[in-house]
């Protein structure tokens, strides 16, 4: 019987082998041939988590920390782990009502499942954080998670530092996956221009999660992880105390101050007013505060020192003088008999001074800021060539050389170039050959189409102080871990027109006279020779569709001390009147602070008077009042809404 069935035994064994072979073949296909299952498994089970480095710290020229990181806390919740919660108590600590609590919880569960940790309350203010931390053991499922935010110990320099914010979708797309939604990126200021130094290098950790998205630990013992590298520090040329003084002087005024060290091009102070406390845009409620700043008619987010352009007015006259001297159209002894008005072009051009001899030579003409003198000088320059068109080309070349009408290349984003009209500009307006030096004579006294930024104005002072060169203005002196940065960063620009030292000495002497006996005696500091030039720029605005002349901008540009200049400065106070009345004393106080490190006691009344002055034009105040009342209504409505729920 057994022998008879031997073939059947073989057949049964064959069936076993055949079926197992089919299974083995299938396994071979699944595990060795087909690669997609491994990818699918990784996609399901492995989470790539970015580890954010701390952002680089920023120091001023004296090594003071001016931007650092501080930890605020987010209250996180994992809904599935919340047990026996005293909802009322938690709401009381957070200052919310139970309806808001339930609403947030529902939203979190909908968006992020019950098993994943989500943010319940963002960036808790320190007092609330303290109260919750004490009682956290009573709230299972809740956790406080540290979140680094920017902190500004001096509460100043908002426009220089800029702010960071969530990266927008266009940037995400451009970065080809480097940035991800929710990442923070420098939006303006140094945070933006030095983003790739400050941000550091992000690390990656591979984590394993289970089917319900709960993290189970690191993948493969952290074998594939890369650690985060902290952002590098920046060392600025900025003098933070000087910056603070500048912001104090310009409070309740619209304007800017730019102070540059002419020896390096390093920015010492750069004030844009009105300003705001940079801490406002880094803590809780930053979105709300941002929108308030954004709608403010005083434009506090506008970085005036590099973005506002003004006609330079009389501060342009030293440049005129240098061109004229170099071109040989005048000598320092050249005088113009001004009686308070220039009539050389038919229509009268008013001069602020009228006593005889105030323009008897170049020194006096600059010291007393004679309009007639420089109208005449400008015409000499333009008419030196055969045709005014060619003369203007020449003039334009000089002016451009002085860094006007073009971006200087400061290491801050959003710099404006200002405008210097050229031959083409007037050909377009008046027609080729249909204009002459009289048509454009106001350029000579810094009025008309010519505009420059406060930074450019300060830079012109650097050029005069240095007798013919400047370094590209910059805020950052050096970068941690990059010894070559300084060399690459410090770019020397020499003025192409080889204006002689004598000519510079002449203009410097004239500018010293401005402070000694001329228009800006208010700026004089005993023991320091300041070379300066005031300016008063006419300006207009459009109110209700009508062109209205506003009070003149008050300008002052200077450098000091005369012998070995260490600071070049430009001050603009919008709609404040004569340059001498506001801009000059502000510039003087800044110079004194920088060179002497403190303000002399007898000058403190001046400091207080300026600090307390409110020079914001009425039409802007009016707009502001309107928006403030709107905001108040909105706040009240919001409060009522919260109370009702």
């Amino acid at each position, binding site marked *: 019987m057994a022998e008879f069935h031997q073939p059947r035994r073989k057949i*049964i064994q064959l069936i076993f082998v055949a079926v197992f072979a089919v299974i083995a073949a299938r*396994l071979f296909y699944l595990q*060795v041939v087909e690669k997609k299952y491994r990818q699918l498994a990784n996609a*399901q089970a492995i989470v790539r988590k970015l580890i954010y480095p701390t952002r680089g710290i920023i120091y001023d020229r004296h090594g003071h920390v001016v931007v650092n990181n501080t930890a605020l806390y987010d209250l996180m919740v994992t809904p599935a782990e919340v047990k026996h919660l005293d909802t009322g108590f938690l709401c009381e600590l957070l200052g919310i009502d139970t309806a808001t609590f339930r609403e947030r919880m529902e939203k979190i569960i909908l968006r992020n499942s019950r098993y994943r940790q989500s943010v319940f309350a963002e960036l808790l203010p320190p007092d609330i954080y303290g109260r919750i931390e004490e009682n956290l053991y009573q709230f299972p499922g809740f956790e406080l998670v540290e979140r680094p935010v920017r902190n500004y110990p001096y509460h100043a320099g908002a426009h220089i530092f800029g702010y960071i914010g969530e990266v927008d979708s266009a940037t995400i797309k451009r970065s080809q996956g480097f940035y991800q939604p929710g990442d923070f990126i420098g939006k303006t200021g140094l945070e933006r221009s030095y983003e790739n130094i400050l941000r550091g290098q992000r690390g990656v950790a591979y984590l394993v999660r289970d089917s319900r998205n709960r993290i189970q630990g690191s993948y*493969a013992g952290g074998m594939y992880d890369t650690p985060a590298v902290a952002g590098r520090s920046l060392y600025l040329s900025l003098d933070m105390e000087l910056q603070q003084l500048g912001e104090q002087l310009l409070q309740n005024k619209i304007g800017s101050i730019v102070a540059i060290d002419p020896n390096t091009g390093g920015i010492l102070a750069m004030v844009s007013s009105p300003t705001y406390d940079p801490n406002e845009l880094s803590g809780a409620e930053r979105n709300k505060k941002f929108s308030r700043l954004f709608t403010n008619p005083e434009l506090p987010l506008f970085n005036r020192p590099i973005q506002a352009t003004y006609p330079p007015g009389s501060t342009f006259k030293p440049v005129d003088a240098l061109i004229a001297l170099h071109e040989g159209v005048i000598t320092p002894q050249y005088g113009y008999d001004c009686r308070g008005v220039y009539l050389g072009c038919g229509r009268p051009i008013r001069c602020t001074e009228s006593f005889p001899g105030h323009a008897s030579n170049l020194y006096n003409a600059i010291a007393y800021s004679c309009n007639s003198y420089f109208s005449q000088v400008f015409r000499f320059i333009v008419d030196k060539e055969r045709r005014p068109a060619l003369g203007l080309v020449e003039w334009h070349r000089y002016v451009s050389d002085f860094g006007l009408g073009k971006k200087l290349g400061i290491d801050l984003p959003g710099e404006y170039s200002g405008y210097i009209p050229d031959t083409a500009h007037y050909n377009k307006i008046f027609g080729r050959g249909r204009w002459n030096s009289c048509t454009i004579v106001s350029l000579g006294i810094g009025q008309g189409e010519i505009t420059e930024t406060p930074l450019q104005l300060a830079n012109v002072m650097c050029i005069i102080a240095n007798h013919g060169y400047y370094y590209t203005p910059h805020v950052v002196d050096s970068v941690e871990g990059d010894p070559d940065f300084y060399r690459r960063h410090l770019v020397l620009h020499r003025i192409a027109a080889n204006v002689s030292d004598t000519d510079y000495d002449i203009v410097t002497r004239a500018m010293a006279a401005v402070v000694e006996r001329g228009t800006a005696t208010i700026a004089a500091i005993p023991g320091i020779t300041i070379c300066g030039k005031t300016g008063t720029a006419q300006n207009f605005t459009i109110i209700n569709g009508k062109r209205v002349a506003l009070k003149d901008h008050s300008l002052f540009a200077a450098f000091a001390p005369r012998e070995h200049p260490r600071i070049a400065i430009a001050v603009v106070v919008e709609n404040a009147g004569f340059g001498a009345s506001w801009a000059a004393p502000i510039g003087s106080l800044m110079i004194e602070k920088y060179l002497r490190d403190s303000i002399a006691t007898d000058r403190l009344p001046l400091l207080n008077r300026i600090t307390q002055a409110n020079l914001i034009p009425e039409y802007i105040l009016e707009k502001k009042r309107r928006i403030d009342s709107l905001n108040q209504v909105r706040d009240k409505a919001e409060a009522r809404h919260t109370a009702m729920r």
Partner: protein
Amino acid sequence: MDTPVRTSVDLIKPGIDRWLIALYFLLVLIGLFSIFAVEHRPGEDVWYNIWHLNKNYSRQLMWVGVALILALGILLADSKIFPALANLMYVFGILLLLLVLAVGKDIKGSHSWLVIGGFQFQPAEFTKLTTNLALAKYLSRLDVDFSTLRARLIAIGLILLPAAIIVLQSETGLALVYLSFFLALYREGLPGIILIIGFSAIVLVLSALLVEKHILLMIFSVTAALVIYFMRRSFRRHPGRLFLILFIWGFCSLFVMQIVPYIFTHVLKPYQVSRINVMLGKEVSQKSSYNVLQSKIAIGSGGLWGKGYLKGTQTRYEFVPEQSTDFIFCTIGEDFGFLGSVVLLGVYLLMLFRIVNIAERQRSTFSRIYAYGLASILFFHVAINIGMTVGLAPVIGIPLPWMSYGGSSMITFTMMLFILIRLDADRQRILR
């Protein structure tokens, strides 16, 4: 192989097959370590968990202990007791199945569980043992001639009775296991044509499910026409053949056009239809294909060498449902890769061959049929269980012997194996 080497060192129990014992412990250990891999998390106190029975692996360890105590009892027993008690146990098994129908508990959609003192027990597992014993007992009777139709029908009836009751308990998967006894019957002389017809029926069912029925009808008709054309000369001498061909053609057509659609709409439950469709690749319903897809991902991600023990992500982090029970093979597939999987298949194949060899060396018909019955059940379980994890077989939820978590299965298979070992050890004594 047929003459086992006996040494004097074999003190424990003379005659027991050490190959089977070794393979058994190997599989049990692999199973325990696989369940451990599913549940263990770094930093957990393993001994605490084992002692407190709060993990599947610790409970499985307990079931292994229980099974080994029963196995020891079997080894100590007289082998004559098994044929003697076979019929009684069969009746006992059937009564248990009926009891479940009456007072059973629903767990995961099947009405096949008895709950006694907090422990769940599945009699449908246990009756595999009793059915095997009863089948062996009946066919080994001297007055039974298996070549008669009557004996065959009774044998098939013995198999189908528990299967039918189990179908009523909504455990179709476990009921299908009983079909594997046909392999043992084949060994005992059931005509091979029945296996072939059965196999053809499976092919027919598959093609009926996979191919559009009108196309199938055309294929059948053309084939039939061709066969008739080529055999036309023989019809004169054997007119019956023509009718046979026409009958087969008619049956196949009817099957495809009427019977299969009827079964799908009236007999099978929607989830069963869905599972079959998923298996055939006709349906990609997220819900029913999820298990199989996750299982394939886990196994497929293992690659050639595997990710290493305790390093699998899919099997350890709850991606594969029923991980410790029906899908325990995924752990091997993911952690040990293709090589580990093939080694495991090899261990099972070795065991099957060993059992077949043992079967063939028995002088007693009872022992031989019992051994073939065990081999058949084992083969069916392994092939279908692994087949379903790799997407070759429908997910019918039968455990992988000695590896899947579960006491009923562990105890039943252990007892079945040790009964064979006991019978084999005494093969010189048993004459029938």
